[in-house]
């Protein structure tokens, strides 16, 4: 039971999502499915970063009546990973939009979304 902490549950879920996303990105042939796999990977990574900032028994870093204004560094969880994840989520949306746009352009040139139809981009 020692390992069943809230942080470990968050970490394991995030790691599973990352593995599922990586598996999808490597095995799927349809470009749209690959993009979905990337977003799943992204979600898992964000979950891992937030889970790492958790400290047992502490509250979210927002000052209110229950926290008071003194000794806050002994009551709050780490605010920096949360700020970084906020950034990461927004960038993720932008990157997903760009990926979808590329997929649209590729569909317009070949009328297909199967990566096997795009031989010239193969390494």
């Amino acid at each position, binding site marked *: 039971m020692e390992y069943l902490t809230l942080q470990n549950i968050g970490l394991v879920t995030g790691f599973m999502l990352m593995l599922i996303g990586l598996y999808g990105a490597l095995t799927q042939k349809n470009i749209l499915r690959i993009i979905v796999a990337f977003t799943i990977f992204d979600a898992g990574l964000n979950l891992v970063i937030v889970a*790492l900032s958790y400290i047992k028994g502490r509250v979210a*870093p927002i000052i209110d009546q229950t926290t008071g204004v003194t000794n806050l560094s002994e*009551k709050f969880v780490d605010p*920096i990973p949360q700020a970084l994840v906020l950034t990461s989520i927004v960038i993720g949306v932008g990157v997903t*939009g760009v990926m979808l746009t590329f997929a649209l352009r590729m569909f317009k040139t070949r009328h297909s979304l199967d990566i096997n139809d795009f031989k010239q981009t193969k390494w």
Partner: protein
Amino acid sequence: MYKNMFIILLLAGFGLLLGSFLLTHHEYLSLPQLPAYYADNTAPEVGAANVVTAVVVTYRGFDTLGEVTILFVAASLIAMFLKHSKAPRHDRHPRPSSVILSTSQKLLFPLIVLFGAYVFANGHLTPGGGFQGGAIIATGFLLLLMANPQAEFKHGLLNAIESISGTSYVIIGILGAILGLGFLDNRFISLGQLGTLFSAGAIPVIYSLIGLKVGAELSNILHHLNEVQNEE
């Protein structure tokens, strides 16, 4: 066959890496020096009740400016790639959306935009902020496009909102450098009382501008993607 082996090996290796991290990492028992400084000094220095907002907008405000720039570049890239052709588009006549969707859209759209505005205006007090509020507003526009795929937005208006709020963000940052202590310093407006709406100096202004900008940008992206679909 070799390809499958490669994939299995890669996944196993990555899983092993993550698993070993899981077994060896230790939970923090107290905050490291920098987050402890942020937690203790946000109230007296920045005056925001939400420490994450203080970190995002003030302590690391320069990063956020870069983030907004990245989002702007992504939106411009999408607009450039999806520049709609001048060729006369043959009008599709899609099946009209269901009564439930079109009625609820009329009811919900103003409420969603209002909620988005609430979330970004209260970013320094509650778990919210410009990016979240902007995303909520874009969801409202998505609902609008789902109910009526032929809808025409005023591109000029969205672009004007976006560029005006982006420019004002930088101007407020420079004002902070002139009147306050440094670029994006929020203390050139009085800090007010902790926990009230008009507090934390320039943070609510900056976050509202970010909210408008992100909302306009994401709505623009959705509209561009939808227009290409109409052209097919």
